[in-house]
């Protein structure tokens, strides 16, 4: 009886989260229509949605599976480029931008999931910092591979070229028909992309992500994943298939990151592989850690606050990134140092909530 009540409480909390996201959407849309939102803030709306999805999906591997991933931006990159290729190559066949955006996100998610499975395989043998370095290495490899990729389209279909030994220097080396369309141009990336992404699409993606992750965490599989995190040997000895659940967590996280990447790619006129580098992965990791590992709602708040913070600090001009760095260090010390924690606990009675919002 008691147990059933507890689950209901947790489910209620989920519904409240969905409601909060929808409410935020309505409030922001209304504010936008009333002209309260300036251009630079409006430009941040879709990236914030992407970062929320990235942070929540990374939290699945880092917080819930307990494996450090330093290459999450790699999945985003795969999603962005495969999604953009899909949406641009279907531009003539499917006129509806909404449908193309959906296709882009699905394709992005599928490609990223496949890559996630590939990366997940060495994961099975490694742990801790060794695994972290492998994910970092995969992220860097993905960046270079996409940097060397050329994709074009003509009436015969898609043409792919890979600049391995300076054999391709421009899109003309793909030997396509006259009037062919260049989609990915090596290190230049995608130029002349159509802006398909909308804030509404971002909100829908966040809701889908929350639905998948929250239900996964509370399912039988989610409990197995958390059991592996807490004690792998104990989990194995009660018959949990460690391989299967680790791969599952990796692939789901990668797929969500791929969808977010496709949305992110569809938001800009030009997309470059160098955007999705190690620093991007670290930024996303920061959202997850600052929001609290394994805490989905915390990741959302951290992603929003940390994306807005550099913009909010714009009045400090040159000093803003310096202040950002100091704030980051101070927040980490404030939330993790036992002495500061007790001090904060004396001043603010509900220290847990306050530290997550800081």
């Amino acid at each position, binding site marked *: 009886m008691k147990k059933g009540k507890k689950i209901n409480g947790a489910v209620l909390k989920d519904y409240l989260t969905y409601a909060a996201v929808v409410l935020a959407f309505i409030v922001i849309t209304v504010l936008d229509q009333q002209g309260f939102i300036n251009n630079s803030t409006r430009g941040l709306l879709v990236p914030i949605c992407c970062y929320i999805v990235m942070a929540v999906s990374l939290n699945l591997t880092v917080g819930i599976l307990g494996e450090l991933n330093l290459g999450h931006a790699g999945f985003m990159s795969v999603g962005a480029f495969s999604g953009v290729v899909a949406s641009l190559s279907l531009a003539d066949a499917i006129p509806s931008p909404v449908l193309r955006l959906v296709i882009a996100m699905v394709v992005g998610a599928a490609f990223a999931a496949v890559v996630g499975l590939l990366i997940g395989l060495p994961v099975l043998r490694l742990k801790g910092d060794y695994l972290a370095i492998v994910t970092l290495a995969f992220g860097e*490899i993905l960046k270079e591979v996409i940097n060397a990729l050329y994709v074009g389209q003509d009436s015969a279909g898609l043409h792919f070229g890979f600049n391995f030994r300076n054999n391709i220097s421009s899109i003309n080396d793909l030997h396509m028909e006259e009037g062919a369309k260049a989609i990915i141009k090596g290190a230049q990336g995608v130029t002349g992309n159509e802006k398909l992404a909308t804030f509404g699409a971002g909100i829908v993606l966040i809701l889908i992500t929350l639905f998948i992750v929250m239900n996964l965490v509370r399912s039988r599989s989610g409990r197995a994943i958390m059991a592996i995190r807490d004690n792998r040997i104990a989990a194995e000895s009660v018959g949990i298939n460690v391989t299967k659940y680790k791969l599952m967590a990796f692939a789901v996280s990668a797929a969500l990151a791929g969808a977010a990447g496709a949305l992110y790619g569809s938001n800009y006129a030009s997309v470059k592989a160098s955007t999705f580098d190690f620093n991007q992965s670290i930024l996303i*990791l920061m959202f997850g850690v600052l929001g609290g590992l394994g805490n989905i709602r915390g990741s959302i708040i951290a992603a929003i606050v940390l994306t807005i913070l550099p913009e909010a600090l714009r009045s400090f001009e040159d000093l803003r990134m*310096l202040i950002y760095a100091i704030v980051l260090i101070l927040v*980490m010390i404030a*939330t993790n*140092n036992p002495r500061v924690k007790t001090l904060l606990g004396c001043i603010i009675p509900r220290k847990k909530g306050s530290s997550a919002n800081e």
Partner: protein
Amino acid sequence: MVFLSYLISGLSLGSVYAIIALGYTMVYGIAKMLNFAHGDVIMVGGYICFIATTNLGLPVWLAVILSMAVCTVLGVVIEGLAYKPLRQAPSLAVLITAIGVSYFLQNAALLLWGANPKMFSPVVTGTLKLFGGQLTISYVSLLTIAACVIIMVGLTLYINKSKMGKAMRAVSEDKGAAQLMGINVNRTISTTFAIGSALAAVAGVLYCSFSPMLMPTTGSMPGIKAFTAAVFGGIGSIPGAFLGGLLLGIIESLAKAYISTSMANSIVFAVLIIVLVVKPAGLLGKYVPEKV
């Protein structure tokens, strides 16, 4: 002959990686943390040397000593202000703090020295010609390799023979037990950071002698590579960092020459992944089986 020259350039690049990786691996072995700000200490070392020689007109050896001194102080200050309060915190929290320190150093450098790249002049110039001019080796390469060997030997002796070295080994094995034996754990960790940062300054000067563009972000790529090298050799192991750094440099140089210029980094990382899949604790790392 051509192969030999690529090999030597790889060896000298690897020596730089090895010196940086030593800093990573020592800090990891003792404080059990990944110090992501290490790469940025390299950048600071490069800038100090640049300013000392160009603006202050100091001789090169004095500039190197000055930059080592500044970086040592910087390392100890970073440790004391940012990492010491987090001794008991989970490792990911320390990792994020280290990233914060890295951002801080990069942006402070941006404010102090501007975004425009500075042209760093190599600490020594000239080349050595062998086999009737068929093989040319720059003196910087020779100096780098020599510096790396000297540092490696010196560090091994220090860790194995000195009292502080013994304390370091004890702390890396078991912090609690070391403290009970009367070892000042905090001072040992600070000393480790001091040594690591001084090495980073040397590495910064040598690295900038190879790739002379000095920018606030100069340190991040060699930092990542050296971190990879440390893991490659088995993180926490000093000979491992040495071996890992050298191998990484050689693979990178040969891959650039014979396979693909644009894919050289990918090849390095692919080799790393393969090595780790075959030997999950790195080349020289100790594999500790889990006890139930």
